[in-house]
């Protein structure tokens, strides 16, 4: 459940942030999402990956669909991909990896503070 909420929150922040900020705002969105919601490192990565990956995949796929692949098939060919859908997949993959690392970084930062807080309480 937490995983799902986190993924949705990251995707939402990323979507709105990238309307006015550069593409790497999606990495920061994933980072912020991880600061907000606690999960393990692995879950965090997967959550960031899916959030940004699916976001980019969906947006790209919509554009591909609405434009009848007119440009996508040409750009796919420039990158020696045999079908427009592969370019949509690559887009999702690149976004996903960037999002995954952003989220992981957020979680590892959060873990530093969590440990301190917890350890402080333990020895009191």
């Amino acid at each position, binding site marked *: 459940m937490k995983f799902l909420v986190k993924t949705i929150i990251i995707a939402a922040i990323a979507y709105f942030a990238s309307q006015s900020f550069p593409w790497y705002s999606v990495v920061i969105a994933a980072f912020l999402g991880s600061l907000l919601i606690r999960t393990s490192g692995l879950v965090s990565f997967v959550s960031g990956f899916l959030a940004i990956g699916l976001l980019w995949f969906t947006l790209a796929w919509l554009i591909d669909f609405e434009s009848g692949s007119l440009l996508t098939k040409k*750009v796919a060919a420039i990158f020696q991909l045999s079908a427009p859908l592969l370019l949509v997949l690559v887009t999702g993959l*690149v976004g996903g990896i960037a999002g995954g690392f952003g989220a992981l970084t957020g979680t590892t930062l959060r873990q530093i503070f969590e*440990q301190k807080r917890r350890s402080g309480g333990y020895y009191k």
Partner: protein
Amino acid sequence: MKLFKFLLSLALTAALVFVLETKFGSVPPLGKFLNPVGGFWQNAEKTENQFIDIGIGAGVNEQVQILFDENLIPHIYANNDYDLYFAQGYVMAQFRLWQMEFQTRAAAGRLSEIIGPDAIEFDRLQRRKGMGFAAENSLREGENDGQFTSIMQAYSDGANHYINSLDYANLPIEYKLLGYEPEEWSPYKSALFLKYMADMLSASETDLENTNFVELFGKERYDFLFPEVFDSPDPIIPSSTVYDFEPIEVKEPLVKGFPWSNTDEIYEKPDPLNGSNNWAVSGSKTRSGNPILAGDPHLGLNLPSIWYSLHLNAPGVNVMGAGLPGAPGVIIGFNDNIAWSVTNAQRDAVDWYKIQFRDESRQEYFFNNTWLKTQMRIEEVKVLGGETYVDTVIYTHHGPVVYDHSFNQKEQLTGFAMRWIAHQGSKEVIAFHQLNRAKNYTEYTEALKNYGSPAQNFVFASNQGDIALWVQGKFPIKWEGQGKFLMDGTQLDHDWQGFIPMEQNAHVLNPERGFVSSANQHPHDTTYPYWSFDSNFEAWRNRRINSRLTEMNNISVSEIMALQNDNFNLKASETLPLLIEMTDGMQLNLEQSDVLDLAKNWDYFNDIESKGASVWEIWWDKIRKMANEKFRDSAKPLKTVGERRFQELIAEYPEDEIFDLPETSQKETATEIVQQALLSAIDSLQNWSAANDGKEYAWANFKNTTVQHLLPPLTPFTVSGVQVGGNRSIINATGPRHGASWRMVVELGSKPTAFGVYPGGQSGNPGSKFYDNMIEIWAKGEYLSLKALPIAEMQQENILFTQIIDPRNE
């Protein structure tokens, strides 16, 4: 440990972002590029009309309305000329910005900045030819002319208004792929663009190749193979024309000695196929009684197209036709009263002078018995991913020294300076500004007075019933033979002595034959009082046009359209019967004689489905190639024998040594060459079929007309296999990579009826359906209707969207 994990993860993330934000070789920054919100995806246009009526900010004096019709042709309505050209600059940048910038970068020799070290030699050449020098001179020529500066500034302001509104998401895709950003536009860039056109059209001379030829084979042989005038030249200005003016006298040098020394390397010249057709028929020959004008400039076929169609309306002007992205005004078009079109006027506009430097400092050169100072221009070629290349170009009073010790010239104290008419400033922009507004023949000739280079044959027709044609440009007065070969740069009398006054340029008004025409052939017959020369004259399109127009009467617009798309191959009809005769006695197998039969039964039309046309074209190419091989293989670059002369040689001099193959011991004649070439041609045709899944070599498939993106490696942006007939020397001059880049037909009634089309589309964006939508229409020989209507008469249902520019003070 936790801290380490965080730092590691942070470092990995930062590295990843960095990698995705960086361009590697030809791979664009992937994060930036693939981002669906801002990357290349934003260049994909929806198939459903996505345009909305929008305001585009302020910047003009009074409100401007731009209505885009169903072909995305803008109809610009302004209240004054500044606003009109502002809007034109805005609109052209909006749809063609990348091309505008790329072409001016190419002109200026600045491609290395975006492409890298591969372009250094190209950039050096552009600078050595003095492209920037020429553009500066044009601006200087116009700097005291308020109208000139205002037009150039308005266009530039408009283009910049668009450029400044851009962010990464709406940059043209080529910027995203190559990873660079547009610069500001400027009047200098428009001037550069016009020099880019001048280079394309007036610089394909062969003076140095001619010199090499004479050096290797002698003057007599040169004169035999390269006659100045063809038999039956059928010149542009009809032979009946009387030249009753007093020509300016030209002083012949005492000694016409040319320096027969040369360079081993000559840079590649613009495509000599750059040519065109145009004609105008008087009302006495048309069905409606109105004059009809037709024009189709032939250029390299590229995407985005060189042309952009537009309609400009303001008080005093209502003009429509084809413009050139980068330049203000309509270049070929019509208004309410007149229509005009251009073909290239073949005239040697570049001459070469051998320079003798005093010493290795090259600060002085010898001229007219004295030492003159040179000027040095330091050219810094900035290189993507490399060190700046610094080149010093030496200038003499002739012009820039293109070839010297650092560029294709081995002798330390020798250089070859280039004298090019386009180095001089002239105000073509004013010529087009006035032509756009001209109401009659007198105003047309007034407008042409401002036109210097590249020289063009301006065909004209008006609704007052006049038809005319001026061979217009700034032409140096030359003594016979001047500038045909490398000249002696130390002699005063080898310099250009002056220019032909415009009123003495060859022209014709309302000739008795009822039509005027031009197709890059000889401008005039030998009764014209000045000597003129070019290395390349057309010999077939002109004769076909003139013979058709002579026999046609009661002509309709659709018959003129059909003539523009005429595929009759006059050259083949004159030559093929002879070639076939020469195959008598050949031992051919069944398959081979089937191929020969295709040629025998051919009707001489290079139509889409014709196989006979394929046989003829490849056969003829092979014959010429075999005979010219020895010139092509020469250590010094030479010119090959032109097709017209070659045709004559086969018919009249079949035993000439040009047909002798140097690699064999016996002496070949034309017959052996023709026979060998046939076998080789048949092989090529069969190989082509084998390589194309056994497809038959129908002419359009075999020719494979390709409209290529300006960056050839981006092949998916190129359209190939266009189903279209024609070839060079045919009125429909569409070859594999070259052809009618714009076709226009206008009937001059009380209101003009006009049609136009070009092989491309109004949008430069490969992600738009308007990128290449006209190619098919063009290939079929069909046209769009061009309507220059007042804004009140524009039909709403034909308007895709409207843009409004508001005054700057609101």
